[in-house]
Structure formats: C-alpha cells, structure tokens
C-alpha cells in the first residue's frame, strides 16, 4: 500500500474555537471551551484526558450527536464542508460514510433488535446504493477480514449473543464499511480484557497502515496512545492544554498536568518499591471551574497569575519536535 509521502500534509478536519455547552438545572455548563486543532490525512491523533475533560463531547459535538440540551459554536470543517449546524441531509451523507465513530459500549451502540448482518448491510445499501445481495456478500467478506469466526452464522446473530470483543470488532467493521476518511474511536478498548484489547489495537493499527484512514483515538490510557498515535492532544476541563508528537509528550512533557500524567502511569519497567508519583487532588467540576488555569488548584508550581489569567497555547521553543502547551510557566519574565 502507499506509504506516507513527504508532500504537504492535507488538513482533513479543521476545528476552530469549538465550544460545547450544556443547559443544566444549575445553569450553562461548558464541556469544551475554545478548542482548535486539525487532523491531517492519514495520521492518528490521540486525545487524552480524564473523565469530564471534554474529549468525547468534542467529537460528538462535531458530528452533531450531542444530547438535546447541548449546543455547539465555532467552526469544524471536513474537507472545507462546514459541519456545525450543517443541514441534516449533508450530515447524514457524511456520517457513517466519510466520518465514522466507534463507541466504548458496543452493546448499547448497536441496535439490540436487529441482526448484526442487517445492521451492517444497511449501511452499504444506504450509502453505496448496493442491492441487498451485494451488501450481504460485502459484509460477509469484511467480517471475515475482521476475524469473526463462522461469519455466515454470525451474520444472523443479535448483538447480545456476542462477546464484548466480538461486538467491538463488529462495530469497527460497521464504522469502516464505507472506507471512511476519518474514524473516531472513543475509548474503543476500555471495556475489554488486555488480550482482546491487543487484538483490537492491532486491527486499528492495520487500518491506519493499509487504508490511510485518519484516526482519532480518544482514551485515558497513555500507553495505548504511545503505540498507535502520531500526535497527542491532552485535554483538561474542556480545554486542550498540550499538543505534541508522541515523542515530545513522553520525553519532554511541558505542562505540569501532562508531566504528572506521564509519570503516574505504572508500567512494567518502573521500580515497584517506589511509590507512584501522583497528581494530587481531583479534576474540577465543570459546574464550578476555577478562574484562570483550571489545573491551578492541583498544580505544584502554581503562581499568582495562574488563578486569574487563562493561559494561552504557545509553541514549545527548546525542542526539535513541534508542540504547543498552555501554561504560565513559559511566560517571558
């Protein structure tokens, strides 16, 4: 298959000043604030953050899949097509076709009353105008590639009859049937065992290598990101606080939160006699965000301006790898 070329990168998805807000009984809650990033063709972007950091809502908002009380503002373009507030017809022609998403909970993401095969072939009938017969043949072929045993029998199974790992494969098959240009995987392996997780990650790795699909991998597990992704975006309390290549993030993390996150991940090489380094405290509640930097209450290097002024993203200077981070520690003075 074609290898990545050195020609100029195509920014396939551009997100500018995205805000996602929810109306709640306690007022307006900002899940994502002023987020800008881009996704290059053929790259894998890791989006890392704790629960409530806005990592899922960013992409649900982008695809118009927010809960009823959610609103988005800003701009997200896919190949120069604006996605936010786009007509339903345009979104429907893109979603599941050019832009696909895989969810964490495969049981609730698949239709419980429809056979697996029908759910899959429906996509081809809808987006690729195939006949039911053609679609069935294609679906059987794809399920086989994704390592589903006894495909003819599995074609007739309902989701509840399959194991979690098997369902996750079906969901990846469903999301990639139309050869999407962008695949958003939201915690695709969190509910799975490590052995099955390795199988699924290998599947995603193969997709990235052989089809040049751009992948967004949303996760809280930095170790997964290290193996699969090219670039990482770290989110905290609805904002991107650091961007960088995988090497930049792991070898020279700049933001104190990123540094804490990288060092608090236990791995099979660390010394088990030494206590794990931790990030003290709890992630803030989105209903009650502190002024200034949201990480300030947990930060060991907090300064006066951190509690009043929101730090802006700045380029990392002293490094070969490119990256950005949002912290007052880099202020000139």
């Amino acid at each position: 298959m074609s290898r990545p070329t050195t020609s100029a990168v195509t920014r396939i998805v551009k997100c500018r000043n995205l805000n996602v807000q929810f109306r709640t009984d306690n007022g307006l809650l900002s899940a994502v604030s002023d987020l800008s990033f881009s996704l290059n063709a053929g790259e894998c972007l890791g989006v890392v953050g704790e629960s409530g950091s806005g990592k899922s809502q960013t992409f649900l908002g982008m695809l118009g899949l927010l809960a009823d009380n959610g609103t988005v503002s800003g701009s997200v373009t896919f190949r120069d097509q604006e996605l936010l507030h786009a007509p339903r017809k345009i979104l429907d022609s893109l979603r599941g076709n050019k832009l696909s998403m895989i969810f964490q909970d495969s049981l609730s993401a698949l239709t419980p009353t429809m056979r697996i095969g029908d759910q899959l072939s429906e996509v081809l009938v809808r987006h690729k105008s195939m006949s039911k017969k053609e679609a069935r043949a294609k679906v059987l072929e794809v399920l086989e590639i994704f390592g589903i045993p006894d495909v003819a029998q599995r074609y007739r199974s309902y989701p509840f009859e399959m194991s979690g790992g098997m369902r996750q494969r079906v969901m990846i098959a469903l999301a990639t049937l139309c050869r999407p240009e962008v695949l958003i995987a939201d915690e695709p392996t969190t509910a799975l065992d490590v052995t099955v997780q390795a199988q699924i990650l290998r599947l995603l790795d193969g997709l990235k290598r052989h089809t040049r699909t751009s992948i967004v991998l949303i996760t809280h597990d930095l170790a997964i990101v290290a193996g699969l992704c090219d670039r990482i975006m770290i989110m905290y309390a609805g904002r991107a606080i650091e961007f960088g290549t995988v090497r930049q993030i792991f070898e020279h993390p700049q933001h104190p939160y990123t540094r804490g996150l990288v060092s608090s991940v236990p791995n099979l090489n660390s010394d088990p006699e030494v206590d794990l380094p931790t990030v003290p405290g709890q992630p803030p509640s989105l209903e009650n965000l502190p002024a200034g930097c949201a990480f300030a209450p947990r930060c060991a290097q907090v300064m006066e301006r951190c509690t009043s002024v929101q730090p802006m993203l700045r380029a990392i200077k002293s490094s070969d790898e490119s990256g950005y981070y949002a912290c007052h520690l880099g202020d000139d003075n």
Partner: protein
Amino acid sequence: MKDTLLKVENLSVHYRTSGHRRFGGRSPLLKAVSNVSFELDRGETLGIVGETGCGKSSLGKAILQLVPAATGRVIWQDQDLCTLGPAQMRPYRKDLQLIFQDPVSSLNPRMTVGEIIAEPLRVHSPELTATERNIAMLDMMDRVGLLPEMAGRYPNEFSGGQCQRISIARAMILNPGMIVCDEPVSALDVSIQAQICNLLRTLQRDTGVSLIFISHDLSIVRYMCSRILVMYLGKVMETGPGKNFFSRPRHPYSRVLINAVPKVDLDNPAPFLGNVAEGELPSPVDPPSGCVFRTRCVHTTPQCVQETPELETDEAGTLVACHRWRALN
C-alpha cells in the same frame, strides 16, 4: 518470619446455570473456580489476575463466604470458614473486609459518609459510645485523606476516587487482618488510580493488613503485589513471587498476558504485533479437555488435549500448570 494468616485448599465454586436445560435433565454446571490452593502471609499482597470470566471475583467471594464453596477449605488462622454458619461467621467478618470495583454503587446513598464509615463499628463494637465511634471515624477519615467536614455529606457529592477512599475507610476502621480488593482502581481515572494504590500501600505498611488484590491490570498488580496467582477458566495456571513472574513468566498464558500490556516504546512504534493470544475465553460451561488454555496456546501438543497438567514447582518456588513449561523456558 513467615506468619500464614490464610490457607486456601482445593477451593472450588460451582454455579448452577439457568437455561439451556438439556432434555429434562438439570441445567449445566458452571465451574467458576476449580481446585485453587494458596497461602497468604501477614502483611503480604497476593495479586489474582486473569481475563473477565476466569473466576477471580468468584474466588474472592468464596474466601469471604459470600458464595458457597463446592469443595475445599478456607482456613483463617486455624479455623475452616467453610464449616461455619452465618451467625458463627459473624465475628470473623470483622477481620475479613472487602472493597468493590464500583465505588459509587457500593456506598449507601441515603447514609452520610460519616455514618457509612462508622457503621462497621456500630455492628461489631457495640460497646463503644457514639463519641468514641465519632473519634475513630474522624481519625480514619484523616488517614485515608478525607477532610473532617466531609463526614456530614452524602456519597453522591463525591467523585469516584473520593468514594473509593470512603470504601477503604469503611473497610479499614475495624483494623482487619485481610481485605479482598476486587478491581479497586479499574473504574478510576489514571491520576486517581495512582493515588488510591499509594494509599493502600501506605495503610498496609502502617497496619500490616494483608491484601488480596484482584485485577486485570498487570502494571498495577506488579506495583502492588508481592505474589501473583494467574487464573484461566477457573484454574490456576501459575503462581509465584511477583518478581519472578514478570522477569521469567513460566506459563504460556502468563507470557500472553504480559505481552498484551500496552508498552510505551517510542523507538519501536509497531506494537501489538507480538505474541497476542488469538480468540477469546472459551465458555466456562463447556471448557476444553486437557489443558484449558490449549485452544489459544501456540505450543499445543496432543498431550495438552488429553491430559490435564498438574501444578509443578520450579527451583524458585513458582508453581506452573503446563506440560511443556520446561521445554519452553
């Protein structure tokens, strides 16, 4: 000096499954745990690892007599707990505590945090006055990193990590000999996982409590546990000192588990291509003949299909159930 607190001998747990009744006969038996034996010393942490459905939680519950054992003995300081009735068991419950995976649903939403933490004292130490209970409760809250003013609040006001601190306080307040921790950090965020692991280690250092740490996350198990027990379809595949387990795993399944842990290796960004077990756990209702792991093992021989491997010991004291472990190591 070795001070054995708990001895588990040939413990089995069977469940009668519902449905799939065959021609008027009884429904099939699910052997969740088969013939598991191990010992736990004072102040030690034993890690029980394996995939979903391998029987690790059933084993933990059977030790605490929360599910009945089909065969075998659970000997806690010379007393076989399996022979005790519920009332006779009660005094032992003081010594044997449990922490659950889901910290939020394991706390009563209608009780305040203070009531939750002090409740074990009310049940097991009725001689204490309310003031004494209060003092003990506040002391315990301090030791797990909760502020005194949180005592009057309800669990729904707390995050997952703080709820897990509340569970730990509730388990620790009677100064138990052993706590079974069933996936205590797997529902928590990464930065909180590290806090809770460190807290458990600190409490263990201070009180000498023994821990049975059930987890599927090997990197955390490595950090928490001095000994490891690997289960697959209810059977022990390998058990031994943690250090040896990670440097020289003996059983093919142990190697598969260790290989499956995502590693941060920036110079070799082609991961997940190594020795990954194909397929998934077979049904425990109808396990494979011979060695239960043979359907996913890359080293299977006809002997593995016919004969069930017994646990054999290596020179470092690791027990391994594999016909071919000598040839493969």
